[in-house]
C-alpha cells in the first residue's frame, strides 16, 4: 500500500495540513564568556504537520523538548531556525500586529491551572480578557460570550465574579480551557492539561476536550507524557527524544506496531491496570536516563541507551525520519528489529 492509498480512506478534512512545522530548531544559549557558545538544544530540527480536525499527540519524557516545541509552534517563544506554517502563513516571519491577529486562531492550554490564572482577576475577567485584547466584544456582548463559554466548559456562569482560588484544580483547568476557547480558535496547543489533576478529575477534562473538539471542529496538538491518555485522545502520535522526533504514525499503528526501539521501550514501560496482564509483561528496561541536551550523543541520539544499537553505524550516522510504512515514519537504522 502506498502513502497515497492511506489518504483515500481518510475523510477529506484530514487531508489538509493546518499547521506545518519545518526544520524547527530552538536553542537556549547558556553562559557567556568562557562557556559561551554552548546551548541547550531543546528542539533540534523537527518537521511534521498537524492536519485539520485531528488530534496529534506529542509524547516524550521530561526534557525531551516537547513543551518547548509546543510553545514555539504557538509563537510564545521565537524559533531559533525553521518555519511554522499556519495554513499558508509562515508564523516565524510575522511580527507585531500581524502576529497578534494570528493568535486569535491558536490558543494554548497550560499544565498547571494554579500558576496560569492571575489570582487577582475574577474568572469573568480572565476569560473575557482576550475579547478585550482583540477588541471583539465589550459590555453586554462580552458578558454574554463569557457566560456562554463558561457553560460550554461546564462552569456555572453565576461564578463569574469569583476568583481562581475559590475553585478546585479541575474547575480551574476548565477556566483555562474557557479562556482559550472564547476567541473561537481553530487550533489549540494543550501542554499536559491533565497531569496536575487527580485521577478522578482527569477523565472529566479528557471528555470535555473531546466534546469541544467535536462541537467546534478544533485541531489539537496534545502534549503529554502519559501515553495512555495520549492513545485515548489522539488520531496520530509523534514521539520525541532529546529534541528530535523519532517516530510518528497513526495512534493505533504506533501502539500495535512501534518501529523505533525507544517507542517500543516507552510503551512497554507503561504499566497496565490489570494484574493478570502485568504478570506476563516484561518491560524493556532502558539503561540510564535521558542524556543532556547541551551535549547530545553523536549519530543517533538514542544509541547510548538503545538495546539494539550497532556500532559504529548508530554512533556515527544520524538516521533520518523516513517513511517505513504507509503514514508511518521512524528515525532508526534498524527500525522494527527490536
Amino acid at each position, binding site marked *: 500500500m502506498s502513502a497515497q492509498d492511506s489518504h483515500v480512506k481518510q475523510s477529506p478534512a484530514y487531508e489538509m495540513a493546518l499547521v506545518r512545522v519545518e526544520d524547527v530548531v530552538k536553542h537556549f544559549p547558556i553562559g557567556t564568556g568562557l562557556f559561551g557558545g554552548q546551548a541547550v538544544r531543546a528542539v533540534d530540527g523537527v518537521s511534521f504537520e498537524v492536519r485539520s480536525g485531528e488530534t496529534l499527540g506529542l509524547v516524550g519524557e521530561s526534557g525531551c523538548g516537547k513543551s518547548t516545541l509546543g510553545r514555539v509552534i504557538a509563537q510564545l517563544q521565537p524559533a531559533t531556525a525553521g518555519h511554522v506554517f499556519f495554513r499558508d502563513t509562515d508564523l516565524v516571519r510575522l511580527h507585531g500586529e500581524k502576529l497578534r491577529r494570528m493568535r486569535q486562531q491558536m490558543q494554548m492550554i497550560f499544565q498547571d491551572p494554579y500558576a496560569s490564572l492571575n489570582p487577582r482577576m475574577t474568572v469573568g475577567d480572565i476569560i473575557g480578557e482576550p475579547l478585550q485584547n482583540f477588541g471583539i466584544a465589550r459590555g453586554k456582548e462580552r458578558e454574554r460570550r463569557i457566560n456562554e463559554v463558561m457553560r460550554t466548559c461546564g462552569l456555572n456562569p453565576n461564578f463569574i465574579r469569583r476568583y481562581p482560588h475559590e475553585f478546585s484544580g479541575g474547575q480551574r483547568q476548565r477556566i483555562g480551557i474557557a479562556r482559550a476557547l472564547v476567541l473561537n480558535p481553530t487550533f489549540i496547543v494543550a501542554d499536559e492539561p491533565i497531569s496536575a489533576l487527580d485521577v478522578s478529575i482527569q*477523565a472529566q477534562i479528557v471528555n470535555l476536550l473531546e466534546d469541544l473538539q467535536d462541537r467546534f471542529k478544533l485541531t489539537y496538538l496534545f502534549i503529554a507524557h502519559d*501515553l*495512555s491518555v495520549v492513545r485515548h485522545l489522539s488520531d496520530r502520535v509523534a514521539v520525541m527524544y532529546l529534541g528530535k522526533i523519532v517516530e510518528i504514525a497513526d495512534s493505533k499503528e504506533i501502539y500495535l506496531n512501534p518501529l523505533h526501539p525507544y517507542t517500543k521501550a516507552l510503551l512497554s514501560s507503561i504499566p*497496565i*491496570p*490489570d494484574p493478570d496482564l502485568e504478570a506476563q509483561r516484561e518491560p524493556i528496561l532502558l539503561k540510564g536516563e535521558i542524556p543532556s541536551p547541551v551535549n547530545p550523543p553523536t549519530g543517533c541520539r538514542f544509541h547510548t541507551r538503545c538495546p539494539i544499537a550497532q556500532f559504529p553505524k548508530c554512533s556515527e550516522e544520524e538516521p533520518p525520519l523516513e517513511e517505513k510504512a504507509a503514514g508511518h515514519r521512524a528515525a532508526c537504522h534498524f527500525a522494527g528489529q527490536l
Partner: protein
Amino acid sequence: MVNKGETLGIVGESGCGKSVTALSVLRLIPEPGRIVSGHIWFKDRDVASYSREELREYRGNDVSMIFQDPMTSLNPVLRVGFQIKEAMVAHERFDNKTADERVVPMLQKVRISDPKERAKNYPHQFSGGMRQRAMIAMGLSNEPDLLIADEPTTALDVTVQAQIIELLRDLNRDMGTAVVLITHNLAVVASLCTRVIVMYAGRIVESGPTRQIFNSPQHPYTWSLLQSIPRIDSTQHDKLLTIAGLPPDLSNPPPGCLFHPRCRFRVDRCSKEEPPLEEVGPEQAARCWVLMKNALAGAEPVR
C-alpha cells in the same frame, strides 16, 4: 495489616489520607495532628505506646520510609555515600568501619553503576532516578522488615519508573523486605503489589488481593476509578467514565457513606448510615451498602 515479606499497595487520590496513614505507622504525624484513637501493631507490640528511645530503634531499623521527591530528602551538601553510612551509624546497628564497607555494596544492590565513584558524589550530581535509588539504599541499609514507599515514582519518567518498580520487586524477593507502596496510580499497583487497599476521604473503602480488586471490584469508587483511566492496551475508543464532583471537604464530611454524593449507584440508606468495612469475598472487604455485584446485576444507576 501488612504481612511479613508482602507487597501492599495503598491507592487513593490526593488528600484521601494515604500518606498520613503511612506517617502514622512511623509516628511521624506533623503537629498539631495526632493519632486520636486506634493502635498500630508491629510484631505484637503497639507502636503508639513506644517510648522515644524505642521509636528511634523502630524507625529505620524495623520500618523505613522513602518519599516522592528524593531531592528534598537528601542533604545537598553531604556526599551520598556519607548519608547512607550516617543512616547506619545513627542506628548503631553497624560500627563505623562496617558501615563504611557496606555503602558501596548497598549502592550496587540498588543498581547504581560505578558505585564506588558515585558514593563520593553529591545529590545534585545524581539524576532523579538515581536519587530515588540512593534513598532506597538508605532505607534498606539497616535491613528493615518493612519499607514504606510514598509515591516513589510519581516525579519520575515512565522508563525510570519501570526501573524503580523492577528494583523494588527484586529487593522484596531477594531480601524479604515487605513493601508498602503508596500511590495514586492503579497501574503501578497492578504491576507490583499482591494486595491492595483503596482509600477514599480518610477511610479504607475496599481491600483485598490485587487480582480480586481489579477483576471484581465491589466498591463503586474502586469500580469507577478503574473505568475512568484510559488504558494503553485498549483497542476500541470508549468514552471514559467520569466520577462527578469532588472529594469531600474532610472538615465538613457528608453524612452516611462519604462517597455517596459522587456515587452513581447510591440508594437512600447511603446518605444516612455509614456502611462498615465488611467481607465480600475471600480476603476481600468493601465499605458499601450496595456492592458492585448487586449494582451491575440489578437496578439502573442513578444519573
